C-alpha cells in the first residue's frame, strides 16, 4: 500500500447543523487541502464531533455543502463518500477476528475472497499487525486495537481518513507512541486526514493545520506555529499553551500600555486592551517589576509559579529550574515587550500593529 494517488481535498461551504432549532454549527466554511492533516480542536461541546460526523455522513447536514474533491457529497451515503473513520473506542466488532474486522467493509461491498485476503494482509502489514490476523479484539492490547481500527480504515483505500478522538482512551505513554505512528502513517499513505481532539498536544504535534472551534465557529485555522505565536483572539490564546497564556486587562494611553500603573510596553492604540503574555516568556530577573510568589510547583523539567503584582494582579509564569525561589518570597520579573499579544478588550480579537 503506497501513497494514495487519489487523495482529495475537503471543502466545507456554509455548513450548518441545527438540533431542534438550536444551532450547533451556525455556518462554517473551510478548505482542507488534499493530503493535508487537519486537526479540529476545541473544548467539549464545541461542535467538533458533529462537524466530523457530518463530513462522514453519519449526521444529516442542516444546510450548506460538503465537497470531497470535486464531488458534492452531503446527500451521498457514507460508504460512497470515499472516506473511512477511526473511532474513539475503536468500535471494533468484538465477535470478529482481526482479519474479519479489517475486511468487513470489503465483504459488504462484495469484494471476492482472494482479493479481500490480500488487501487485509496488506493493510495489516501497514500497521504491523500481520501476525495477529486470527486474534479477537479482546486478546489485543489497547494500542493493537487502535491499529486494527486504523487498518480497517485504510483497507478501503479512502481519499479521506477521519479520526474521532482516537487516542483519548490510551494511557499517556501509549498515546505518545501512537502519535508518532499516526504521523509516520500519514506521511506514508498521504490521505487527507481530519482528526478531532480536545488535546492540544495532539493537535500541535500532528497537524499541518489546526482548526480551532468554539460554539460551532472557527476561531482560527492555521499552522500550529501561527496558532501558538499569533493567536487570533483571546479564546485561542487561552486555549493553547500549558500553562495557559496570562490574559490581563490593561489600559493604553499616552503611547504606553499599563496594568494598574505598571508600564508594560509602548503602543499606538488607546483605551482598554487585553494583554496576553505566555508564562514561559516571563523572566525572573535582578530588577524589574516586583512580585510576590504566591505559589510554586516543581515539575522536574521546569517549574510553574503564581505571582502577585503589587496592584493585586496575578500572573502565571513558567521558569527553568535552578532559581532558588520559594513561595512567599518577593522577586522581580521582566516581561519582554516583543512577546506581548494585544487583544481588543471588547471583542477579544487580536490587535495587529504590524
Amino acid at each position, binding site marked *: 500500500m503506497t501513497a494514495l494517488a487519489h487523495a482529495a481535498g475537503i471543502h466545507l461551504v456554509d455548513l450548518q447543523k441545527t438540533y431542534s432549532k438550536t444551532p450547533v454549527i451556525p455556518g462554517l466554511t473551510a478548505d482542507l487541502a488534499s493530503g493535508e492533516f487537519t486537526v479540529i480542536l476545541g473544548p467539549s461541546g464545541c461542535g467538533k464531533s458533529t462537524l466530523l460526523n457530518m463530513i*462522514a455522513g453519519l449526521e444529516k447536514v442542516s444546510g450548506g455543502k460538503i465537497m470531497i474533491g470535486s464531488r458534492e457529497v452531503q446527500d451521498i451515503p457514507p*460508504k460512497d463518500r470515499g472516506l473511512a473513520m477511526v*473511532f474513539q473506542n475503536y*468500535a471494533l*466488532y468484538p465477535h470478529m477476528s482481526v482479519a474479519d474486522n479489517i475486511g468487513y*467493509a470489503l465483504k*459488504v461491498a462484495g469484494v471476492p475472497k482472494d482479493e479481500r485476503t490480500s488487501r487485509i494482509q496488506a493493510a495489516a502489514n501497514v500497521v504491523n499487525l500481520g501476525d495477529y490476523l486470527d486474534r479477537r479484539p479482546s486478546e489485543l492490547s489497547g494500542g493493537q486495537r487502535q491499529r486494527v481500527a486504523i487498518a480497517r480504515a485504510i483497507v478501503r483505500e479512502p481519499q479521506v481518513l477521519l479520526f474521532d478522538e482516537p487516542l483519548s482512551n490510551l494511557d499517556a505513554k501509549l498515546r505518545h507512541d501512537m502519535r508518532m505512528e499516526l504521523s509516520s502513517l500519514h506521511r506514508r499513505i498521504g490521505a487527507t486526514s481530519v482528526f478531532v481532539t480536545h488535546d492540544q498536544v495532539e493537535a500541535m504535534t500532528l497537524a499541518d493545520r489546526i482548526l480551532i472551534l468554539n460554539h460551532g465557529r472557527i476561531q482560527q485555522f492555521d499552522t500550529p506555529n501561527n496558532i501558538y505565536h499569533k493567536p487570533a483572539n483571546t479564546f485561542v490564546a487561552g486555549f493553547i499553551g500549558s500553562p495557559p497564556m496570562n490574559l490581563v486587562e490593561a489600559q493604553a494611553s499616552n503611547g504606553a500600555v499599563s496594568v494598574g500603573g505598571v508600564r508594560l510596553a509602548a503602543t499606538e492604540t488607546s483605551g482598554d486592551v487585553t494583554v496576553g503574555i505566555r508564562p514561559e516568556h516571563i523572566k525572573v530577573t535582578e530588577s524589574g517589576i516586583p512580585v510576590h510568589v504566591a505559589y510554586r510547583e516543581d515539575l522536574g523539567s521546569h517549574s510553574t509559579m503564581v505571582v502577585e503584582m503589587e496592584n493585586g494582579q496575578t500572573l502565571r509564569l513558567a521558569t527553568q529550574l535552578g532559581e532558588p525561589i520559594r513561595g512567599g518570597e518577593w522577586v522581580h520579573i521582566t516581561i519582554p515587550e516583543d512577546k506581548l499579544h494585544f487583544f481588543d478588550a471588547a471583542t477579544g480579537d487580536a490587535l495587529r500593529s504590524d
Partner: protein
Amino acid sequence: MIEDTRSINTTATLLLLAGCAFVLAPLVFVVITATQSYGDFLRNNFSLVPGTHFFENLQQVWELTLLPRQTFNSFVVAFVSAFGRCFLAFTTAYAVVFFAPRYSIFIYAAVLASIMLPLDLMVIPAYQVAANVAMPINAVANLGGAWETLFGAPLDLQLNLLNTYAGAAIPLMAQGTGTLIMVQYFKTLPVDLAKAATLDGASPLRFMVDILLPLSKGPLLSLFIYLFIGGWVAYMWPLVSISSPDMQTAVVGLTALDSGMGEDEIPNFPLQMAGAIMVTAIPLVLIALTQRLIVRGLVLSEK
C-alpha cells in the same frame, strides 16, 4: 469479613442448611416414593426407605400414560414460545434503541404495558381470541353492516387456534419482559459500532444480522433458557386452551394423572411421583447445567 464472626457464620450456615433442606426435601420424597411399588406403598404408607421399583414405575408411566407424548408437547410449546419471544424481543429492542423516529417511544410503552398484566389474569378473553383469531377482522368488516350490504351476508372468517401448538405458544409470547431485557442490553452497546458498520457500507438490517445478533448471543441464550423454562412450567393457559389430552402439556397432564380414580381409592402416588420426575427432569437438568446463564438472565430481568 471484618471482625470475628464465628457465631454469626454458624447461624448463617444453619440457615442455609435449613433452606437447602426445605428446597430438597420435597424432591427427595418424590424420588423415594417413585421407587416404591403401589403395593408396598399401600402397606407402609409414607416411608423414607427407598424401594426397588423405580424403573418399573417409569416404565408404567411411559407405557400407560400420555406423559411421554405430553412431555414432547411441552418441549414444542416451550421451545416455540421461548424462541418466538427472543426473536420478538430482539427486533423490537433494536427498533426502540437504535432508531431516531420518536414514535418508537410509543412502541416501547405499548410493549412495557404488557408486563403489568400477565396472561393468567385474562384467560377468559384470551380464550375467546384464540377460539377465532379472525374475530377482529370480522368485527371491522361487519361494522355498521358494511359487509352484509356489499356481499349479502356478514363476514364470518374462522381461525381457531385452540388445541394447537400455535394456540398454546403464541399467547405466551404476548409479554414484554424479553424486550425490556434486550433494550437494557442494547443501551450498553457503543453507538460507534453502528457508525462503523455504516461507514463499512452495512445497511441497518445488515448491521442487525452481522454485528448485533452475534453480539447478543450471550444475553439471548440466557433469555431463551429462562423463557423456555417459563414456557415449560406454564399451567393455566395450556389447561384452558388445550382440551384434547394428547395435545396437552406435561405439567397439566401430571395433575390429571390420578383423575381416573374414584374418591375413595388411594391414588397411585408412586406412579404419580415417577410422572413428576419425568415432567421436571428436563427443566431441572437445564437449570443445573446452565446455572450461571440462568442467574444472569434473572438478574437482567431485574433492571
